[in-house]
């Protein structure tokens, strides 16, 4: 079956060594969609992201992106196809300037549009422009998160995966961050938001999946999930 979905994950199993983390994941993100994968620590969220990005091997199942199967592709080829993952913990290059960090965002893709895209990122995050020549390791946590997202946008992604973008930010900054993600989506970018922050995530996404012990226990529209009685159980173990 072929779908119009931008990202179509089917029956995905993945893990490390003897340990199986993901046990049959089915996930769809359409073009222009904004979708949340929610789950507590250890549910398998980061493994799912790493598997989609080609850094953890898929043991079973398939991952289709933009009409091509990518579950055997290298991480570089997946970025080249337009699937960009902004990882948990930001993973910026601390020894390099903000400008160099952004340049490397377009290392594999959209390098001919580098100047224009950098201008776009600076317009979105004026703080980064002020600190363009500063070493990225000296930025505050919020600024580092902006830089990580900015670096991802430099590749002109078709789908942006955001892993825990609100982690470690002050409540005010979290609100700003979610507003910014919503704005990116309104401009047409498909977003897969992977978060622990259930309430605020459900406020901005169309659909969501709740991940527990490596498989989705609930899925549906944001409204459906919010009213689901199992939600509390998935998060609080009640």
């Amino acid at each position: 079956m072929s779908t119009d979905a931008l990202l179509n994950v089917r029956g995905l199993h993945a893990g490390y060594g003897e340990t199986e983390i993901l046990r049959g994941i089915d996930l769809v993100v359409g073009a222009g969609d904004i979708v949340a994968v929610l789950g507590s620590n250890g549910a398998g969220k980061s493994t799912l992201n790493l598997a989609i990005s080609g850094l953890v091997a898929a043991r079973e199942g398939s991952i289709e992106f933009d009409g091509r199967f990518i579950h055997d592709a290298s991480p570089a080829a997946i970025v080249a196809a337009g699937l960009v993952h902004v990882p948990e913990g930001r993973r910026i290059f601390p020894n390099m300037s903000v400008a160099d960090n952004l340049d490397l965002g377009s290392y594999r893709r959209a390098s001919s549009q580098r100047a224009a895209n950098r201008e776009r990122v600076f317009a979105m995050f004026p703080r980064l422009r002020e600190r363009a020549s500063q070493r990225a390791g000296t930025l505050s946590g919020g600024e580092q998160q902006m830089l990580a997202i900015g670096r991802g946008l430099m590749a002109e992604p078709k789908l942006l995966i955001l892993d825990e973008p609100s982690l470690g930010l002050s409540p005010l900054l979290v609100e700003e961050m979610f507003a910014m993600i919503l704005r990116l989506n309104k401009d047409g970018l498909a977003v897969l938001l992977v978060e622990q922050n259930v309430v605020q995530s459900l406020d901005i996404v169309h659909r969501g999946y709740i991940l527990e012990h490596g498989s989705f226990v609930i899925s549906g529209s944001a409204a459906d999930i919010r009213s689901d009685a199992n939600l509390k159980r998935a998060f609080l173990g009640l």
Partner: protein
Amino acid sequence: MHLNILFPAIINGLLMGAIYALIALGLTLVYGVLHIINFAHGALLTAALFAAFFLHKLFGIDPYLAVFILVPAFFTLGYGLQRFVVGPASHGNDGNILLVTLGLAVVIENMLLYAFRADTRTIDVKYAFDVVPFAGMFLSVPRLAGFAGAVVVALLLWLLLTRTDTGKAIRAVAKEKLGAQLSGIDVAHIYAVTFGLGAACVAIAACLLIPTYYVNPNVGNAFVLIAFTTVVLGGMGSIPGALIGGLFVGVVESLSGLYLGESLGQIGIFVMFILVLLFRPSGLLGERA
């Protein structure tokens, strides 16, 4: 001691130190990015000296022109070694990489020994003993060429690392591998490029050395011991550190040779090495761990 003797000794130390710096540059680059000591560095230097020797002997190619042949050749050799031997054989374990490079060194040295025996060889170029007068001294032309070559290489390397995408990717991989992979940087390729650059540095050093030096299957070891010292002195992985460390080691060696006698010159290096490590364990320009 009289300045007429002291000053030339310092200048000569700087000239030799530039070659040490060049060898250390390759070693520190590989350490900074792959986080391993490349034990095959000395063997690669020996191989490059043999290559420069035979290019001159068999084809009459001047060692300074041989740079343009040996740099691409050794870059390719280094790239291939990392991509197809060191990388796959190490299975991602740094301890294994160390052993694989050590094994490579043994293989390369013994292949050279088998092929060319333990004879020490020198080449004859007509400028080997040329000197130029400078501030009342006479400086060796080949050593000046070595110094200039080392400075140019350091400058080119700096431009590569700060101005090109490949160079920035090398620096990115050095500090943040996962972030680099998710930016679409092929880490195996960057590792191999870095290893290739290290081998290319050694090839240049060989071309600059051979007019005034000799080659035998063990010659690289003496240099690489000094290069290790230089890298640790300057700060592991620091490129300016390798440069300053190399020049510093050259001067210390020259001065202790002057005061203690030529054969004891290297004692000074290791005394200085111990002192620096006692008072500044991260090296002169190293970052604190």
